[in-house]
């Protein structure tokens, strides 16, 4: 992919200080609604559209969930890494866009997001998996 095409899809969405850890923003970027999350120090950008029933999933905050466990036990984990849809309750791992515990093969569409010179740059080129700022 040449630089021109990349530039057309790359958007500066603000200074990194506008994205404190543990927060998220809903943005209109390049005609798309996206959710930008910072959790455990890492930035993630996802499409504001649940792949199950097309709900505005990025209205929600990241949370944890109950991990597979022994009968009668509850083991909480993935804290701050799970985006759970407010319609039907589907859970996605923000790091990969995949459903938690492989409940379904559909994925949350995520976009590469990087920090360059303290500016946050998101690239709206569809990519199958989530991308961390360290990409």
């Amino acid at each position: 992919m040449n630089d021109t095409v990349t530039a057309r899809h790359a958007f500066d969405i603000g200074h990194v200080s506008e994205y404190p850890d543990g927060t998220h923003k809903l943005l209109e970027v390049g005609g798309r609604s996206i959710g930008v999350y910072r959790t455990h120090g890492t930035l993630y950008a996802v499409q504001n559209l649940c792949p199950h029933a097309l709900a505005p999933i990025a209205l929600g905050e990241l949370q944890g969930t109950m991990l597979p466990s022994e009968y009668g036990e509850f083991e909480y984990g993935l804290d701050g890494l799970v985006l759970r849809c407010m319609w039907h309750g589907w859970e996605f791992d923000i790091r990969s866009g995949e459903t938690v515990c492989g409940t379904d093969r559909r994925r949350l569409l995520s976009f590469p997001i990087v920090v360059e010179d303290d500016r946050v740059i998101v690239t709206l080129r569809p990519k199958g998996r989530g991308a961390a700022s360290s990409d």
Partner: protein
Amino acid sequence: MSDDIRVIDSDVHPFVEDGVSAIFPYISKGWRQRLAPMAGLFASFGARGRDDGKPAGIGIQVARGLVPWPKRIDAMTPTGGYPGSDPAYIGEHYFDQHNVEIGALVPVQPMLVDPFVNPDEAATIVQGFNDYFLEQWLPVDSRLRMHMVVAPQDPLRAAAEIRRLADAPGIVGVLVPPTNVMFGDRRWDPIYEAAQEVGMPVVIHPNGSEGDFQGGVAFAGGLAGSHVERYCLYFEIGVSTVVSLVFQGVFERFPDLKFVLTEYGWSWVPALLWRMDAAWKGGRANVPWVKRAPSEYVFNHVRFTSEPALEPPSDAETLRILENMHAERTLMFSSDYPHWDADQPEFVFRKIPPELEFRIKRENAIETYGDRLRLPVPA
């Protein structure tokens, strides 16, 4: 889907933030005094997605563990109100955006009187909610209709409430909170008689307390151990209800009655009807008042709502079920808006013949609810 279908939705849920205190202007001074200590009752669904610390409306659900269903933050009102708490916003957020011509309210809060021991207390509360919704909600959006709720404790008083509201514009059906008395039991006859007389269907919907108290709806085999189990078992109540209605001869006693099962599922209908028809051939003498094949009573009198729509492995499977249950007559679209598992009209029944889709999303509701559905409600 055919985008030009103007959808009729038979299950939209209002929520009254103030709970029972909202109905105080609609009940007598004496009852206000008596209910004053309960003013906050039903002001929340407790753990059902609410996080403002208000007391639980459904105590037992809290005892079973926090309800794990998500909160519909997308459906919260512009002022931060609970999803479904503002009739104008239901119009804007749901009706406008999904081509819904008419949405019939199913008020869950008044159905929570089901465990009350005092029949007059229960009847007064549902009467207050009925009048409250009539005056405060229906005039807000011309697309709104509502079901009245009657209390199950005293069917004679429930019948009087049905007749009192027989001509109230905007009321389209009679919602009866389920209990552990099967709906074929003659105890309910006064309600059926009044509903038939005024020409409204009797409607049932889960009330949230199934399996929670003595006298509440019992699940087959025992108590469900978690909410997700409970959620999967609601269809059992639908099965029990259909079997009871048909074999106890309700539709022989009330030949013009329509009965709607809301939110109990529908994919089980074909298998049940095959079994009932087969059983009737050998067991007819048990219930000699059942003069026709059980499936015939169901096709003529019983209606099912669609939400939660099935997510089967293939569309062909869905179509086969729809054909076998005669969905062109028996299935009505419902969204369950604004609950967590709601169906959007354009997301379900997309790959079925257009005529069938039209029947499900519109015409079957018009036939079931009758002219009342389309009569204008005074603003």
